[in-house]
Structure formats: C-alpha cells, structure tokens
C-alpha cells in the first residue's frame, strides 16, 4: 500500500457559513462536500471534469468540484445548490426550472442551476449563444436542453419584471 499524505485542516466559507474539515490534501472537494459536510446536492456524473454535475461556485467562479483538491478550498467562499434558495424562497433560476421543465431526472440540475445562476451573474441579459456557451460544460441527457434554455430566459424575464 503506497504511503498516503497526512490529513490537513481546511477552513472556508460554505453557503455563507464558516466551515472547517479535515481531509487529505488531494481529496476531491466533491467528496468533502458530500461526505464531510453532508451537502449531497452536488452530484458526481463522471469524475473527470466532463459533465458538470459537480459544479459549484468558488469565489464566484464556476468549477467542477471533482477536479478541485480539498486543499484549494482553503480560505475560499463556496456556494453549492443548497445555498441558492434564501429561506424558503427559491432563487429565480430554481423557480424557472420548476415552472418550465428545466429539470427531468434532476441529477444534472444542481450543477446546471448553478451554471445558469453564474451565467446570469456575468451576463444579466444573455443572448441565445451566451446561454448555450455558458451551459456547455454541463451535460444533460434528459431534456435535450431546450427547456433549460427556456428556464434561463424565464429567469431573466422574472428578474426584469422585478427590477
């Protein structure tokens, strides 16, 4: 059995609250979130950075948590799907996915919703190409993406009428 590194302590902010855990430096952030912090909303679809099911936000940027070593989380601000709804009220993107059929089996949905929310933070009025590009790192096998695009557009509209 090869020599293993020793566990390190990592402190970061997860969904607005302070979090601290012990992990092997090269443990995947995905596993830490799911197993140590019990945030199982983040999913694993491929474990190699292709599917985006494990997408989370780290300091505002969308990353595949299956590719992020735990030690890189030190001092960062992390947002997972569990941190999106405020109190009982859904984020505009979540509400839109619910109303417009953006989620079918739901396994890509947490990552997809974070990708969409991240996109809207960067481009509040995305055009079709920006939506497609912005979500291209997140695979969905169920929807054919059409209802996901519609959901994003609906979330933009909702944000507009609110503003």
């Amino acid at each position, binding site marked *: *059995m*090869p020599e*293993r590194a020793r566990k390190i302590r990592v402190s970061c902010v997860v969904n607005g609250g302070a979090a601290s855990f012990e992990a092997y430096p090269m443990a995947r952030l995905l596993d830490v979130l*799911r197993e140590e912090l019990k*945030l*199982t*909303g*983040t*999913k*694993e*679809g*491929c*474990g*190699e950075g*292709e*599917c985006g*099911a494990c997408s989370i936000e780290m300091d505002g940027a969308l990353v595949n948590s299956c590719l992020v070593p735990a030690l890189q989380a030190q001092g960062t601000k992390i947002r*997972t*799907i*569990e941190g*999106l*709804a405020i109190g009982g009220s*859904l984020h505009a993107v*979540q*509400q839109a*996915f*619910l*109303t*417009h*059929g*953006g*989620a*079918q*089996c*739901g*396994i*890509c*949905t*947490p990552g997809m*919703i974070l990708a969409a929310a991240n996109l809207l933070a960067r481009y509040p009025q995305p055009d079709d190409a920006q*939506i*497609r*590009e912005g*979500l*291209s790192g*997140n*695979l*969905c*096998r*169920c*929807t*054919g*993406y*059409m*209802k*996901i*695009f519609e959901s994003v557009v609906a979330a933009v509209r909702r944000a507009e009428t609110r503003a």
Partner: protein
Amino acid sequence: METRVIGKSVPRKEGRKKVTGRARYVDDLSFPGMLHGVTVRSPAARGRIRAIRFEGEIPWHEFTVVTAKDIPGKNCIALLIEDQPCLAAEFVNHPEEAIVLLAHHDKYLLEEARRAVRIEIEPLPAIFSIEDSRARKEIIWGQDNIFKSFCVDKGDVDGAWASAAFVVEGRYETGAQEQLYIEPQGMIAQVSEAEGVTVWGSLQCPHYVHKALMVLFGLPRERIRVVQTETGGGFGGKEEYPSMIAAHAALLARKSGRPVKIIYDRAEDMVATTKRHPSRTRHVTALSRDGRLLAMDIDFTVDGGAYETLSPVVLSRGTIHAAGPYACPNVRIRSRAVATNAPPHGAFRGFGAPQSVFALERHLDRVAEAVGIAPDELRRRNFIREGQTLAVGQVVKEKVDMNGLMERAFALSGYHAKRKKFAAANSDPRGAIKKGIGFASFLHGAGFTGSGEEYLASEVAMEAMADGTVHILAGSTEMGQGTNTIFAQIAAEALRLDCEQIKIIQPDTAYVANSGPTVASRTAMIVGKLVETAGLGLLKSLTDGEFLQPGYTAADFSRACGEYVAKHGPLKTFVKYEHPRDLHWDDLKYSGDAYGAYAWAVYVAEVSVDIRTAEVRVNDFVAVQEVGKVINPVLAAGQIEGGVAQGIGFALYENVVWQEGRMVNAQMTNYVMPTSVDLPAIRVYFEEIPYGRGPAGAKGLGELPLDGTAPAIANAIAQATGVDVRQIPITAETLLEMLEGVHA
C-alpha cells in the same frame, strides 16, 4: 371535454426537491456501519477461470470477499431465462464479467484491493461480430448462437417479384449506443435474519430486481424488499442491469453482516453495463411502376452480447416496427438476435425499433430515387390508413392521418422550398458548405407487445386517507420522465381534486402494487388507465355510501374520507389490468394486434455539412406527432426534445469503439454526447386524437422520438452531400471517407 388538470403543465411533483438539491439519489444515502463494495471483473472475453489470487500488500483479512461459492440460491440473474450468472464460476463469456466482489469501509483501500486481485484465465476462442456469430465460427451460446428468431409473413412475398417494375435492395447498420444517464448505477443492500434482503437503488423496475433476488437467495417473496431511490435517468439502461448490482451488493451484505453500497464510476458503468443492440438490416423491396409497395422482404439481426437478457423482446419490437406505417400487401420479416462475446446489450429507449426504423426510412429515400419520385410522394402513396393491415396483420382501428402529419411537419419546417433551394445551391461546386433537409415517418407501439400486457396483469392500488390525501401505490418509477406528475394529474382528474392532494408512494415492493416494469412507453397509457380506474373506484365507494354528493369541494372530499374511514376502516381500491377482448395476438404465427395503440410521427431535420471537414450541424429539427391526449404539455414536449437529442447523438456522435468485445472509449471525454452548443432548436408539435382506452385519451410517447430522428438526419445528409448513407453513427471520420468517394 373540460378538464381540471389534464392537459395542463402542472409543475413536476418532485420538482422542488430536485431544484434545491434535496432529492436523495442512492449515492446520497448512508447507513451506519456501511461498507463499500466493488466488483472484480474478467480481463478476458472468453475462457476458463484457472485461478483467483489475492496479491499485493493488502490487509485481506479486513475485507469481505464474495465469489460464486457464496451464493445461497441459484447463481443467475433471473430475467426471461436463467442463463446469465451473477458471478462467473468456471467460465467467462465476455470482458468485464463479474467474478469476485470485495467490501471494505475505506473506499480508497478498496480500489487498491480491486487492482490486487489477479484472475487467471485460460482463453477460449471468442467471436465479436454478428457475421462471425451467424457463420458459427464458434458456438458460444446454445446450439447455434441464436437467442431468438422471428418470422413475420404477410401475403406472398415470393409471388410479388415477377410483377414488380422496380426491385430495390439495401443493407444498413446501426452501432451500439450508451444510455449515458448522468447518474451512474448504484445500489445499497442490507441483509438480516429478521428482515431478509432489502435493497435501495437507482432502478426502473423494482419487481424485476425482486424476482432476481428471490432466485439468487432462494427466498420467498416476502423476504425480499426492493426500494427505488430517486433515479437520475434510465432510458432502459436501468431496466435489467440493476438486478446485477443489487445481487452483488446483497451478497456482500449477507456475508459481511453490514449494509453495503456499490456505486459504479462512469468508466465501470460504461464498460460493464448494457447498451443499445448493434444491428444489421437488409431490405429488398418490390414496387409497381407508380411507386406502390408490392413486397417488402426484410432481414434484421441484432447483436445480443454474451447472454440472452432482454434480447428476444428487443428483437420482437425491432421486428414489428421494421415495416413502418405503410400498407404493403406482401411482407416478410426474418429476424434474429445472436450471441457475441461482448457484455449483453440491453434495453435502450426505442428497444430495437430505432435500429429497424433507421434502416427502413433510409431505404425508402433510396427506393424513391430508384422509382423516380420524391421521397414524400413515395410515402404518401403508401401510408397506412384506418382499416388497412400492418405487416403483423393488425388492422389499424385508430384514426391515423400520416399524410396530415407529414404536411404539417413540412409546413413548419419549410421542407419543400428548402429542398429545392438546397438542391440548387449544392450543385455549385465552389460551395464548401452543403445543405440538406430530410425526414422520416414512423410509428411506435405503446405497451408490451402482443399478449405481453395480458401476462403482466399489472395492478395499481389507491388509498384515500382519513385526512383526504390520496395515495397511489404502484411499482411504476419516476426517472425523470414524469410518472409522479402525470399519475397525480390522472388521479386528480378522476377524483376532481388538485394534484397537491395526491401523494405518490415511493416504489417499494413491500408496499406498492406490481404495476409492471417502467418501460415500453406503457406507463402513461396502461398504468395511467389503471390509476384513472382506481380513482373512479374510490369515488364510487364514497358516493355509493352517500359520504359524498356531486358538486363536492376538496374540503367535502376530505371530510367524506374521514367519515368513511371512521365507519368502514381503510378506503382502498385495487385495480388489475384487463386485456381488451378485441385485441388478439398469436405468439406462434407472430401476428395479430401487436399493440393496443401506436403513436404516429413525422420528423424533419435540416443539416449543413462542411465537405472539407465532414462536420455536420443540425440546423433545425421539427417533430410532429400524434400521441393521443397530451396529459402535461411541458413534460410531454420535454420527453420528445430529450429523445430527439439522444437520437441526434445516435445519428452523429455516439460511437462505441470496440476492441475484442470491450468498449475502449468508456469515458465522457471520448464517448461524445450532444452538449448545449451542438443541438438545433428542437421544435415539438402534437396532434391530439384521444385514444379511447388511454387515461383521458392518452397514448404512450416516451420511446417514439428515438425512432425517427436518426433516419431524418441521415436523409438530410444524403441530400446535402450525395453520400449514400448506410450506417450510423455518421461520424466525421466515416463521412469524410464517404465524401472522398462522392466528390473525388
């Protein structure tokens, strides 16, 4: 008919859980003391197991190790027959066949241990192609490598050749396709003296798993319990294979005395689990001078892999759909599923039909060319109409208007104008981007084939609780396609309530009725009808007992339930499927009413091809279908859109690369499915002709979109490039080669 909730896009029943990340999939569950399990698999395609060695510096005493010797009952995964072992004992028949199971609480150590198990196999000659299997280069299954064969015979095909003005021949191939649900397969098992065997997992058919575990453990029905967890996509891939993982997890749990979780990683899921059957089809078609079909002689073969699993039924559906929605007096379809030394191919949305429909619809474009008429004109002259007979001898009793669907699809896609425009533009030799528009017209039968539904005899239970909540108890599973939501809508409609008052009980064989497998586009139409009937039955109990008067409110209903329960005890109904008496099927002759109803469709695809790189883009896609009454427009359109996307993958991108029976590109990086930037706008339209026997008039639609998408694209590419497309996937590499032939 005025409806309350049918035909409305009520939001997905479990949607809130899914958008907030609270939906619990199998890998999200954890039990105290739980171990993880892994599978050690065959390195060889075929051979005799010589030795199993546990090497390396692994603390083997800490591990639970299971081999075939640890199986208490029969070493098989019982399905149609019992030919597939749960763990190979003496021989292996395909790469990655399971041989040893290991469990340990440390996942990382477990992975090292898996790599330290040496399995020595004395190789035996293996076969890897349909051709070699049919030539019987080796006999690897039964007497002749044939799992099943069918012969459909209508009229007199051989008598038709002489009078034909045209005879057109063609051979077509389709490749394997990976289901690629984004949630890999997984299962947790617990075994105890007191409770028997319980498994929780990602699966489509709880009662299939239940049956397999009964046989494997030699236990009676009530000692096995199967619970479906939230399932992250199935598409057929979680129809039969979950029985295997459940069996493995349960064996480890039994031996270790602890709960055991097995989750496949993506690579293992891709190399070890089922895929769509590769196929070969040969058509010989006779036509009159004016382009009427005189005879269709069809030969259809699918590669079943190493064990029978579901190949006979996949073959059956592929066979029945092989002659399409056309009226032809003489049809012969000979078909067979053959064995090769690859992991068994299995259920995948469409279930044999996408293979045979691809061949037919591509062939008919070639036939039209040979006859000298337009492809749509050929279809128009031969479309089946009400009162005519399909190839299997079924008289069509539905109001079918294929021509109407085709005209609508053409109007929506601008087919005729584009076809002309593209033909003119493509003839300019300077243009590197060629365009094409093509279509496919097709049908898809809903429900189990022939007498299948009669044998299944599905049941649904429904219970009204004292507080007025109505529970639906059925084994039909939600895997994203919308079962929960449409069942709630159907029940709410029957009971005149809102969907919120209906609760779908999690499929759990200890509690729910066996409503049959969630496959074959049968859930809305067949099981949905049982839900409707159960709802009406409950209502009758309440009104007959005068607990409830017409014109009631939701509050009245709840009060009535409370009073009923107080007086009589539980208010529960069971409904069992009754096969319509006028549907007849002859299993021996393979003829009769193959399906209670069909969905009918015409799909149009527009493509552009860069002939320098052979890159194909689908620019527009119009899907017009008649599926009876649409229960939930958003969910129904979502089904079609997702199916078309999978069909586009099947046609263009999804290429399983085989090496000696093993998938070598078992990663999402090199097995490519469509992303959000690859797809066109997929435009979906429904015609709604209520079907008398469906709930509120609904038919099945889940598999339909897989059938017509690939041939529509292939026909469009043929127009764009002049390439005579004969096989899918049409990857850039294969198209480039073919383009050299055309434009040399």
